[in-house]
C-alpha cells in the first residue's frame, strides 16, 4: 500500500437489520493522508452510515476497510486512538462545563491533566469558548454547542477526523471559526472526512469529494475534474445533476 493512503475502503456494504435495502452498496474508495475529503449526498444517501462504519460504531455487512500509516495497516486500538469523531448530535454532557467535558473525553484518550488544559486553552481561544469554559453547556446557544462538539472531537489531536455535518444549525460566525480551525488542523497534518449539506462550504473546504446516492458512490474526484467532466461551474448544480431534483427522505 502506498505511503500516502490513509484509509482504503473495499466493496463495503451495510444492511440494517429491519431494512429491505442495503444502506451502503459495495462502496470502494481511498482517502489520502492530509486530505480534506468530502462525502456529499442527499438525506438518507448513506453518509452517516459510511462514517459510522469507518469509525467502528457499526459493523459492515460485507467488504472491509483498513487504516494505514506509512503503508502499514493499523491495529484496532491504534485506529481508535488516532481518529476523532464529531457527530451530528451534541454528543457531550450538558450538565458539565466545556472544560469538564474536555477533561472527561481527554482522559479517555489517556491525556494527562496538563496536556488537556493546554489543548483546551488553544481550542477554546480559537473557537471562542474561553469566556464560557466554566459554565454548564446546557445553557449555550446551538452555535456554541457545535463548537464544543468539535472541540471534544479534536482534543487528542487526531490524525483522522470524521465530521458528520459539523456546522449544521450554527451561525455564520461559528461556521467561519470552525472551518478556519479545521483548515489549520489539516495544515498540521490531520486528514479530514467531512459530510455536509452546505454546498458552498464544501466547495471551499474539500480537496476531493465523493458523491453518494442510495448507498453507492456515484462520483469521486477533485472538484475541478468533476466540474469539467459534467460541464458545470458550481457544486450545487453538480449535486442536483448527479442526485436529481426529487426528495429522498
Amino acid at each position, binding site marked *: 500500500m502506498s505511503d500516502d493512503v490513509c484509509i482504503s475502503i473495499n466493496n463495503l456494504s451495510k444492511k440494517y437489520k429491519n431494512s429491505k435495502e442495503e444502506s451502503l452498496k459495495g462502496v470502494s474508495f481511498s482517502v489520502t493522508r492530509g486530505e480534506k475529503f468530502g462525502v456529499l449526498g442527499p438525506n438518507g444517501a448513506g453518509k452517516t452510515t459510511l462514517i459510522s462504519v469507518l469509525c467502528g460504531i457499526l459493523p459492515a455487512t460485507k467488504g472491509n476497510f483498513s487504516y494505514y500509516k506509512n503503508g502499514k495497516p493499523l491495529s484496532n486500538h491504534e485506529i481508535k486512538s488516532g481518529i476523532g469523531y464529531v457527530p451530528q448530535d451534541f454528543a457531550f454532557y450538558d450538565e458539565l462545563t466545556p472544560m469538564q467535558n474536555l477533561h472527561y*473525553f481527554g482522559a479517555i484518550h489517556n491525556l494527562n491533566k496538563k496536556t488537556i488544559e493546554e489543548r483546551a486553552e488553544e481550542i477554546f481561544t480559537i473557537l471562542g469558548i474561553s469566556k464560557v469554559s466554566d459554565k454548564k453547556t446546557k445553557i449555550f446557544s446551538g452555535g456554541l454547542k457545535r463548537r464544543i462538539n468539535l472541540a471534544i472531537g479534536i482534543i487528542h489531536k487526531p490524525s483522522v477526523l470524521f465530521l458528520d455535518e459539523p456546522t449544521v444549525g450554527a451561525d455564520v460566525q461559528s461556521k467561519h471559526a470552525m472551518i478556519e480551525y479545521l483548515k489549520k488542523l489539516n495544515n498540521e497534518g490531520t486528514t479530514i472526512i467531512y459530510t455536509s449539506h452546505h454546498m458552498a462550504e464544501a466547495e471551499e473546504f474539500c480537496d476531493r469529494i465523493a458523491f453518494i446516492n442510495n448507498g453507492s458512490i456515484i462520483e469521486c474526484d477533485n472538484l475541478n475534474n468533476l466540474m469539467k467532466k459534467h460541464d458545470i461551474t458550481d457544486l450545487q448544480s453538480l449535486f442536483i445533476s448527479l442526485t436529481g431534483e426529487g426528495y429522498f427522505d
Partner: protein
Amino acid sequence: MVGLLFMFAMPLLLVVIITIVQDSAFRQINENQMSLLIINHDSSEQSAQLITLLEKSRMFDIEQKNETPADEVKNTLIRKGKLTALYIPENFSEQLNKKAALVARVMLADMGLFENNAVEKEPEMPELQFYHDPVLQDAYSYTIVSIIRSHLDVVENSLMIDVIYQLVGIEKKPDTFRDAMMANTVSINQQPASKVNIKPNTTQHNIPAWTIFAMFFIVVSLGSNIVKERMNGSFIRLKTMPVNFSLIFGSKMIVYVSVAVLQVVAVFSVGVFLFPVMNLPQLILPGNFFVLFIVVLIIALAAVSYALMIGALSKTQEQANGIGAVSIIIFAALGGILVPVFVMPDIMKIISNFSPLYWCLESFYFLFLKGGNWTQIIPVLIPIIIFILLCQMITYIQLKVEKII
C-alpha cells in the same frame, strides 16, 4: 449538584418526617392522652365506675358533657374539636344488671347453689355509642374501642361478682375483692423474638425501610442520564474512543453504588446521632458491621442495576423518570415499605415476593430487628442477586441491540 442534594436530602427528610409522624402517633396512643368526650345519660354506679376506670387509665383526656342530647353528640364532638366521644345511654346500667343477674343465676344453678326454674329471656345487651372524628383512622378507633372494651369487661365482671355475692346471701362483697377486680393489673410483657437485645420501634422499622426506598429512587437520576447518553450520542462517541465500553459502564456503576452507600451512611448517621437529640428512638446498628456492609452493597447494586435497566429500556428521559418513579412506589407498596406485608391479603403476599424491595427490606430487618447472621441472610440475598443479574442481562441485551456495546 441539585441532583446529589436531592438524592441525599430526600432520604433524610423521608426518614425524619416519617419517624416523627409514626412515633408521635405511637405516643398519641400509648403515652399522650387522647381527647375523649363522654356523654353519660346513665346515673347509676356502673357508668360512673367505667368513667373512673377510663380516667385512671390515664390514656384519655376526658371531658364530660352529660347534658348533651343523644342526637347532638356528633355536633358537640365536632364543635368542641374532640377526636372521640363515648355516649352512655340511659338504660346502660339497667341492662348490664339484667345481663349480670342472668349469667350469675345460670352459673350458680349449674353449681347447684341456686334453684333457677324460671325460663329467663335473654336480656338486651346495653349498647354504648363511640363517635370519632372522620379524620381518625380505623386503626386508632379500633385501639380506643379495645381499651374501652377492656375496662367495660372489668365493670361487667365486677357487677357479676356483686350479683353472685347477693344471690349467695352476702349483701356486700369485701373491698379487697372489689379492689382486686378493679385493679386489672395483669401485665403482658412484650418480648421481640430477636437474637439480640434490640427493641423494635419506629426508628428500627422506618430507617431501614425508607433508606431502601431512597436508594432505589436513584433510578430517577441514573435512569434518565443513561437515556440522555444513549440518545444524544455520548455513548456512540465513546464507542469511537480507545476504551472498553464495559469500563465506562462499570465506572458509572461504581460511582452510583458509592453514592447509594453514602446515602445509607448519611441516613444511618441521622438515626444514630440526630434522632436522640430530636427525642426520637436512637437507631441501633447491627453488631456485625461486615455483614451490614455487604448487605448495603448488594442493595445498592440492585438499585443501580434497576436504574441502568430502566435507562436502557426507556425511549425518553420523561419515560425513564415516570416509569422509574412509579415502579419504585409500586415495588415499595408491594414490598412492605408502606404497609407491612403480614397485613396484606394472601395473594398480595405472594406478589410481594416479586418486589426487590421486599427482599431488601427483609435482609435489613434480619439485621436491624432479628440480629440475623449469614446463614439467615444468605437465602434472603439470593433473590436480590438474581434480580441484579436479571437487570444487568436485560441492560446488556438492550445496549447490544442498539449497537452501543
